[in-house]
């Protein structure tokens, strides 16, 4: 074992020696610095490994040959080893990244960099408070110098602000230190802990001074203008070091100081952190400069970490896991993002669209952003989960709300930025080249995030249950992303079939239904993907990511697994959605609603775990602490995914703009995840013995109104896919309504709708998508007469709209019939009437859909279009077969469904007598009706065909038209705004007031952000005033 003092000795030895060795050139000194850093990394890694895996006990390093407190000592313990490893690793990678900048500035800059990293190590390890001061001064001075790596006035003024600010802070720190020495006669931190400094006479004020300066070093909001400037002004590679390494060290300093500050500080620390977290992320919203935005994000993340430190006693043994989980994610991700920002060199967020030229950079950027927000499989996911669980368990729900609010703010600007990168309008097309030494560190940190995510998950008992196999499959697909579609699609389909085959015996009937929808539906939608030529870069990994998440939800045995699957699904579907044209804003709002929903679910899981000894998903069946809130949160969370009214604004755009074979995935399949969640929640509420009738009553109304508004809005659409999207909202409204009834029949109806909606909405989206591919427009009024060109598509749409509208004899009627019976038996007449009203409204848009596209006048530019692709016809007709079987033999599906529902609602099911289903009020024989209608239809058709056998086929335009010939198909094809009268009568119901509401909310938040950030006037003196004012305020708050 190499003693940790060699970290210092190496850095200083090399650093001092370079003054002579610089004769050998800057490359030589650069290599020397790298060698020193790698040796330092090796030392801390060696300690980390020994302390973690070989159960070595922590080691003190004594300097001067005397024992503390008489001499300065360093400690290398478990946490120190992690922190120093992190600092040295990022130091090394950063040096690789900055190699050229440092070289350009000469050996002096190289040395300063090396010494900075060394000083950060000492900050972590030292146990002497004055030594802490000395090395924090070294850090400050070194940072102030290295800011100058970036040339120009901006970096100089930022550096000056930084150095005067840190000087003031260290003045306060020093006063605290000397008085601490004066009252205790020692400078050793362990002594302070031993004698509990704060209980000394005057100890509180001394601790206050020390603590406040340690906090100020971490740039708390709002006394942090000087700190944000350096993120913006310094060279990207160095911002990464500040954000990753300096932060780690400063947090560690705070941690050490908190050890002797006394528990009464914990609350204030947590509060300071929380204000910083929320405040910084709020201000991040208004930023359009990348680095500055990342700076706000960094400070925000530090705020969160400070809060965690404040809660360390409450979090108990999970505290290190949470702290390091979030810290490591932040550290890698933020370093990676800063480095990327140096490679791309686009200061304005909108200019980031140039990153698209190198898709692999997008992958890296996405990795970092998702890691920052806390998506699986990154460490922050597990840490945030544990944090929220523990905070809720200990009754700190308000804090959880704060954390989630801050995270949401952060998500807004980070995903907005990501959206610009993926989909923004690329104005400039200037080439940029990626330097090898710059991209390598980025790759290393990105891959480390994945690897660490896996290992972190294994670390904890309750996180080790995660099933990583689907994710591994996604990784495999990602690895072969360079292959053509044919191969990837086949592998994906085979993989999903195989996975379905292995997984289905493990699932109960409820989950099996959803698994069929998710996986079989997914496979069918993937078949359409064969249409694509080329590589379709990036599609398969994200599609499979979504499916991995979806199946993860079903397999989940614990709340963590469920949430893990949920987040994977959100991530995958986000990417699927943003792949569409013009879907930047839609994907953003999808992500934000999903995240807000996910946070609601997370909080609810936390509440559910109060008083439980297990993490099993079944804890939601027996929530002991504020159950009504928990269930409400769960429902709200899941309603974001089912796009209930009020939470639906993301859906129309997202579905409409998605690619042709993606729309069915995100509509017919994805929305069902929300349905599954609602089912789970309602089962949790006790199904038949449900005590939350008010909640489900509200839910029922919500469902009915969603159905009405969704369908009504669909009527007024001109974009075919948008129409279908609104229709999905309406259909999901029925489903929610059905489940909310909490009766056997209600659930049966809802499940029938669920299955039906999956089938007919898949067919519709696939068909319309395929048509759109042929005619190159979404607008229905630009189509028309396509029945002649695409009879197969027409038949598919015809059958599915008959099913959707609920007209007998197809399967949609089963749902309507069940719903009627359920409504009447439940007594929800008015809600029921609204639901049925909206069901009839569906006719309007269905007619518009089919007639505008397939009937009427063929447009001149479509005279040569062909039938839709065979790769679409195959899955469409497989689904049609399914639909017809359901229609002809409904008992095949309804009977097992009934059996399954009987577990939860034993009473009031259907009675089956052969094919005849009866309830206490109604009856229905699906098969017979099908036969009767079929025979009748056949007879009448033959009759008419016989009578009209001599009818002569005429060409287009040969119509009754006052003896004139219509001029163009455009003027003759009645489609645009066809329901104008209806709009005049009922259009007021679908005025976009919900969108307006959300827009207003967004604007208000942004205005607040814009207003608050004016405190950052850019004036260094103002920042100093902020710092001292902050001290004053905390002084008053703490001492009242």
């Amino acid at each position, binding site marked *: 074992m190499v003693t940790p003092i060699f970290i210092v000795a190496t850095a200083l030895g090399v650093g001092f020696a370079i003054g002579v060795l610089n004769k050998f050139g800057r490359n030589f000194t650069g290599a020397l610095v790298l060698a020193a850093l790698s040796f330092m990394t090796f030392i801390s890694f060696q300690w980390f490994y020994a302390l973690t895996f070989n159960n070595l006990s922590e080691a003190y390093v004594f300097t001067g040959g005397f024992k503390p407190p008489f001499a300065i000592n360093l400690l290398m313990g478990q946490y120190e080893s992690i922190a120093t490893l992190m600092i040295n690793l990022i130091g090394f990678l950063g040096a690789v990244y900055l190699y050229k900048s440092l070289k350009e500035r000469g050996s002096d800059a190289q040395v300063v960099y090396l010494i900075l990293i060394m000083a950060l190590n000492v900050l972590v390890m030292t146990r002497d408070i004055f030594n802490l001061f000395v090395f924090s001064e070294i850090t400050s001075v070194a940072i102030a110098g290295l800011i100058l790596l970036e040339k120009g006035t901006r970096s100089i003024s930022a550096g000056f602000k930084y150095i005067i600010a840190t000087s003031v802070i260290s003045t306060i720190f020093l006063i605290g230190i000397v008085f601490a020495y004066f009252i205790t006669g020692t400078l050793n931190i362990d002594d302070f802990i031993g004698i509990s400094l704060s209980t000394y006479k005057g100890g509180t004020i001394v601790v206050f001074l020390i603590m406040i300066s340690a906090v100020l070093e971490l740039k708390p909001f709002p006394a942090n203008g000087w700190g944000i400037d350096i993120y913006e002004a310094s060279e990207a590679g160095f911002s990464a070091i500040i954000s990753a390494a300096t932060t780690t060290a400063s947090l560690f300093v705070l941690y050490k100081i908190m050890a002797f500050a006394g528990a009464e500080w914990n609350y204030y620390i947590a509060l300071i952190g929380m204000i910083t977290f929320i405040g910084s992320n709020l201000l991040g919203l208004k930023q359009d400069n990348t680095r500055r935005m990342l700076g706000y994000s960094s400070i925000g993340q530090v705020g969160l970490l400070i809060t965690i430190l404040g809660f360390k006693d409450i979090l108990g043994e999970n505290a290190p896991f949470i702290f390091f989980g979030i810290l490591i994610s932040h550290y890698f991700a933020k370093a990676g993002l800063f480095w990327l920002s140096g490679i791309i060199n686009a200061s304005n967020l909108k200019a980031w669209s140039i990153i698209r030229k190198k898709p692999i950079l997008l992958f890296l950027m996405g990795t970092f952003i998702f890691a920052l927000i806390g998506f699986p499989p990154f460490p922050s996911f597990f840490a945030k989960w544990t944090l929220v669980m523990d905070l809720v368990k200990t009754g700190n729900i308000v804090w959880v709300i704060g954390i989630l609010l801050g995270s949401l703010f952060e998500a807004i600007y980070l995903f907005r930025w990501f959206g610009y990168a993926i989909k923004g309008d690329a104005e400039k097309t200037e080439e940029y080249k990626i330097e090898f030494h710059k991209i390598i560190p980025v790759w290393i940190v990105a891959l480390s995030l994945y690897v660490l995510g896996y290992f972190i998950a294994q670390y904890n008992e309750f996180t080790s249950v995660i099933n990583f196999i689907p994710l591994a499959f996604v990784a495999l697909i990602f690895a072969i992303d360079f292959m053509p579609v044919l191969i990837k699609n086949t592998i994906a389909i085979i993989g999903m079939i195989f996975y379905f085959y292995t997984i289905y015996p493990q699932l109960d009937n409820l989950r099996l239904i959803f698994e069929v929808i998710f996986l079989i539906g997914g496979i069918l939608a993937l078949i359409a993907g064969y249409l694509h030529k080329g590589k379709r870069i990036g599609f398969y990994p994200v599609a499979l990511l979504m499916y991995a998440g979806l199946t993860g939800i079903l397999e989940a045995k614990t709340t963590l697994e469920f949430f893990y699957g949920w987040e994977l699904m959100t991530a995958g579907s986000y990417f699927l959605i943003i792949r569409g044209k013009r879907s930047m804003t839609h994907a953003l709002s999808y992500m934000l609603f999903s995240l807000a929903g996910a946070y609601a679910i997370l909080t609810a899981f936390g509440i559910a775990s109060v008083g439980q000894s297990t993490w099993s998903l079944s804890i939601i069946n027996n929530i002991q602490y504020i159950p009504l809130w928990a269930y409400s949160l769960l429902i709200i969370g899941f309603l974001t995914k089912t796009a209930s009214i009020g939470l639906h604004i993301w859906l129309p755009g997202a579905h409409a703009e998605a690619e042709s074979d993606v729309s069915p995935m995100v509509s017919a399949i994805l929305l069902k995840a929300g349905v599954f969640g609602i089912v789970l929640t309602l089962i949790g509420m006790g199904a038949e013995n449900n005590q939350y009738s008010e909640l489900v009553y509200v839910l029922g109304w919500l469902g009915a109104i969603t159905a009405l508004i969704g369908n009504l809005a669909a009527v007024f659409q001109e974009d075919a896919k948008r129409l279908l999207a609104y229709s999905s909202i309406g259909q999901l409204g029925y489903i929610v309504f059905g489940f909310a009834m909490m009766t056997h029949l209600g659930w049966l109806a809802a499940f029938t709708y669920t299955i039906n909606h999956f089938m007919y909405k898949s067919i519709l989206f696939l068909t319309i998508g395929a048509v759109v591919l042929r005619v190159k427009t979404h607008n229905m009024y630009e189509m028309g007469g396509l029945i002649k060109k695409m009879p197969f598509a027409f038949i598919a749409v015809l059958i599915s709209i008959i099913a959707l509208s609920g007209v007998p004899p197809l399967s949609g009627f089963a749902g309507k019939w069940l719903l009627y019976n359920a409504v009447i038996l439940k007594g929800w007449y008015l809600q029921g009437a609204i639901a049925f009203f909206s069901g009839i409204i569906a006719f309007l848009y269905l007619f518009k859909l089919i007639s505008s596209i397939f009937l009427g006048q063929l447009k001149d530019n479509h005279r040569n279009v062909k039938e839709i692709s065979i790769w679409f016809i195959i899955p469409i007709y497989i689904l049609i077969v399914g639909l017809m079987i359901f229609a002809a033999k409904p008992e095949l599906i309804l009977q097992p469904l009934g059996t399954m529902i009987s577990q939860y609602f034993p009473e009031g099911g259907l009675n089956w007598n052969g094919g005849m289903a009866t309830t206490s009020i109604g*009856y229905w024989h699906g098969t017979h009706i099908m036969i009767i209608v079929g025979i*009748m239809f056949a007879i009448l058709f033959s009759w008419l065909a016989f009578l009209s056998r001599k009818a002569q086929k005429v060409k*287009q335009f*040969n119509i009754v038209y006052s003896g004139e010939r219509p001029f163009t198909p455009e003027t003759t*094809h009645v489609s645009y705004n066809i329901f104008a009268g209806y709009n005049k009568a009922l259009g007021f119901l679908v005025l976009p007031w919900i969108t307006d509401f959300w827009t207003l909310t967004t604007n208000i938040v942004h205005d607040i952000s814009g207003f608050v950030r004016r405190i950052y006037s850019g004036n260094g003196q103002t920042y100093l005033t902020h710092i001292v004012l902050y001290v004053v305020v905390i002084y008053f708050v703490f001492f009242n």
Partner: protein
Amino acid sequence: MNIDFTKLFFTFLGLMIVLNWGLLMSAIMRKIGARVAGRYGIPWFQPWVDLIKNYAVRSQITHGIMFYLGPVFRLSGGVGLFLFMPILFGSNLWSNFSFQGDLILILYFQFFGMLGMALGAGEGGQPHSFIGISRGLSQFTTIEVPMTLAVISLAVQYHTLSISEIVAAQQGGIMNWTMFTNPFATAAAMLSLLGAFGHSPFDLVKAPNEIPIGPPTEYHGTFLGVLRTNAAILHVVETVLFMNLFFGGASNWFELIIKSFLIYFWSVFVGMVFPRFRIEQSVVWFLKVPLILGIIAILLL
């Protein structure tokens, strides 16, 4: 399903009776209308003449397969409604196939013909068809609202969705009719009936003089014949539905004829008095008084 040929025969017979009664009824109504307007009117056999003429037209044109399917769907809708409707109370032979499905089936089967017709007409590419259909569908959505409320009210009142049982519950005197036991539901339904029959003021679907005859503009010859046949059947079946639900049903053909005539006359009567609504007017109209009546019917349960 065991095929009962006797029953099948009676079903066919019933269909014929209904068809002819429907034709006759339409002739009577037109005659009444003419007299009110001070004209002489048509002879009573005019509908038969028209029908035969239509079926006999020799030259026909078609716009495609869906153009055929439109009238077929339409007629299937009418015939299907007849098939699933118990015609006479207490008679197994005249109850058709009503034991395969209940009131909900009837309600939703109405859409079968409508939807098919809309699509068939659509293939013609005739702008007036589209206009007619869009008006028809718009109006239809709101017509159904009071009707739905009335049906729910009835189902709750009688605790069944079976039409036969609803009729059975109304036996034993005129005061047992739904008309008296649930007057608000009856009123709501009867107002929605006005829309369903499409007489003035709700005749903007076909809107003569405005968009020739709306959806079927492009249809002629046998196609038109089929549509006319359907219209006759449908009118009777719809009145029979109302009769069954609200006016005690009928235990013999005579009673059926009287009641269906009166119910049909109600819509003709209103049509004589009021001028045509515009679409937004009629949509809103159904969401006012009829809707309120329907809600009252529900709330009074």
